[in-house]
């Protein structure tokens, strides 16, 4: 049974220059204990999709669609109900931990706040729990460190604190938005391993949002590739890495620098630039950069769904697995034209 099921998610932003469609008809689900990676370049809409689900869109954004978490639709919830779920049943960690930590409070106070707020523990218990959590994320001398302020921690340590805070209430789902992008490689490796380990231990589901396919290979079970606000391909990690179907995924994989190969000197690159979300128009959004572009690509490509659940939005037929259904390209548009009323009320802190 899926823990989170998102269907037909639309996210729009009103900018002075016009409307930007950041996410256009996105469907995905996360099962209990599963770890899903949402991969895409900047502007692909990967962060905005999750922000919309959590009710954290910027003021000029609006979203519609369904996001069922344990059977309840997050998109229909009031702010209070969402607050209860955020930080308790769904934890979030961001790229820059400093933005989500209060610089004027000690780590202990901030962690205790979360615990007392969500679990109603007493102060001493809260502190003991906080120290325990810091130890779990391998912060040395947690009894001492818990009394310090965020600026006394290094970048990697701060991200550990954020993870510890996120895990305080034993959430069922962890959403990590580029958690290691701002960190040094050696620290990045530490954090990636830590997250993977904690997740296995507590059987927590995770959505990892990243632009880095290499990190995905280490800690995720399934991958969803986004481009210009749409899903272009999804599948198990083996499928995506060893048998990518969509030309974009193939290009993305080929353009990764590989430490394990010395021979290939020249890096493969995808030509061109990401499209302007302001005037996307119809057809395949990737066609101008695609190496396998055909005449039909001027039309909206179909979303092919295979028996084993993998999907590819392309005219090129999937060579892998039996195709269960093929959704025509424009049906997504039709569904998406429904009313988009839910305005977000909160800004991102």
């Amino acid at each position: 049974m899926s823990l989170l099921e998102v269907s037909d998610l639309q996210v729009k932003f009103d900018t002075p220059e016009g409307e930007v469609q950041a996410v256009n008809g996105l469907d995905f689900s996360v099962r209990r204990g599963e770890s899903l990676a949402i991969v895409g370049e900047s502007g692909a809409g990967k962060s905005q999709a999750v922000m919309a689900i959590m009710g954290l869109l910027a003021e000029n954004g609006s979203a519609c669609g369904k996001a069922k978490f344990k059977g309840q639709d997050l998109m229909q919830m009031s702010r209070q109900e969402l607050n209860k779920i955020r930080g308790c049943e769904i934890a979030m960690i961001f790229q820059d931990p400093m933005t989500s930590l209060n610089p004027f409070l000690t780590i202990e106070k901030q962690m205790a706040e979360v615990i007392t707020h969500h679990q109603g523990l007493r102060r001493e218990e809260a502190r003991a729990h906080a120290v325990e959590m810091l130890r779990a994320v391998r912060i040395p001398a947690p009894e001492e460190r818990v009394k310090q302020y965020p600026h006394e921690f290094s970048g990697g340590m701060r991200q550990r604190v954020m993870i510890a805070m996120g895990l305080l209430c034993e959430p069922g789902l962890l959403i990590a938005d580029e958690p290691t992008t701002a960190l040094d490689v050696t620290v990045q490796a530490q954090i990636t391993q830590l997250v993977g380990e904690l997740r296995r231990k507590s059987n927590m589901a995770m959505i990892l949002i990243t632009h880095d396919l290499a990190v995905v290979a280490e800690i995720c079970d399934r991958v969803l590739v986004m481009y210009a606000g749409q899903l272009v391909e999804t599948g198990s990690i083996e499928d995506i890495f060893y048998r990518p179907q969509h030309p974009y995924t193939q290009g993305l994989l080929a353009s990764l620098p590989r430490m394990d190969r010395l021979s290939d000197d020249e890096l493969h690159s995808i030509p061109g630039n990401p499209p302007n979300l302001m005037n996307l128009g119809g057809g395949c959004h990737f066609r101008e950069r695609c190496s396998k572009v055909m005449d039909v690509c001027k039309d909206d490509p179909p979303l092919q769904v295979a028996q084993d659940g993998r999907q590819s939005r392309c005219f090129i037929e999937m060579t892998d697995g039996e195709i269960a259904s093929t959704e025509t390209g424009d049906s997504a548009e039709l569904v998406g034209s429904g009313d988009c009323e839910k305005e977000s009320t909160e800004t991102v802190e």
Partner: protein
Amino acid sequence: MNSSADIPAEDPFAAAMAEEDVRGRSLWVDAWHRLLKNRAAVISGVIMAVMILLVLVGPLLSPWEGDFTDWDNTSSPPSLETGHWFGTDSVGRDILVRTLEGGRISLLVGLVATLVSLAIGVTYGAIAGYYGGFTDRIMMRMVDIIYALPFMFFVILLMVVFGRHIVLIFVAIGAVNWLDMARIVRGQTLGLKNTEFVEAARACGVDHNAIIRRHIIPNLLGVVMVYVTLTIPQVILVESFLSFLGLGVQEPMSSWGALVNDGAQDMESAPWTLIFPAAFLTVTLYCFNYIGDGMRDALDPKDRL
């Protein structure tokens, strides 16, 4: 894989060569378009344009002179019959003409004093901020010292030394206002000088003066322009205050401040002598504030998110 994959094949280049140059859309144009979408600012702008036109041309069209005394109609209320649409004051001068003429002085003071403070403040602040270190410390200490001088004392001192003259009002107000401007500009410059594009300019061998001119000043103009539009009404108010204390413009010249002061004395017997100049003053102040707000939003759209 081929290295030129990132450069599209011949065709787009050849095609583009023949094509006209694409026109760029500068940040200023962008800001201008955003400003035009701000209704309050646009209306305020139109009102101010009309006001300035009126103030410049109005007195020429009116049958009355500003210092003409109409003995038949002293302290007469507004009426179309007498030809004094805004009424007259206790010595029979036409309020409409006097308000418009006063507007010239008020707006002129606002504009000139602001320009003076702009010129001094931007140069001073940009230099202090850009060179930093010892230069900065000396320059900003001087600002602090001038700041510590009581403003009124300063004005009176100027009056005593040089005698009362309208130019002195410009100088006095400008001399004080540039301090704020210099501080704002210095702060902005400190931030700008550490940006990568200034470093890039230095790495390209661009000399200091050119960096200040081409890279620093254009990028702080936005903030400066907002500050200027908010300074103009402030200066107009200061002038009114000086006039109120008898340190401002002299009869027969007038300004809105002086008129309001005169009108306030006859408030009960002839309220129109207060209401009309005060209305003009208030509308102007409001308009400038709306324009300033609009410009702030237009120039820095991130602020609104």
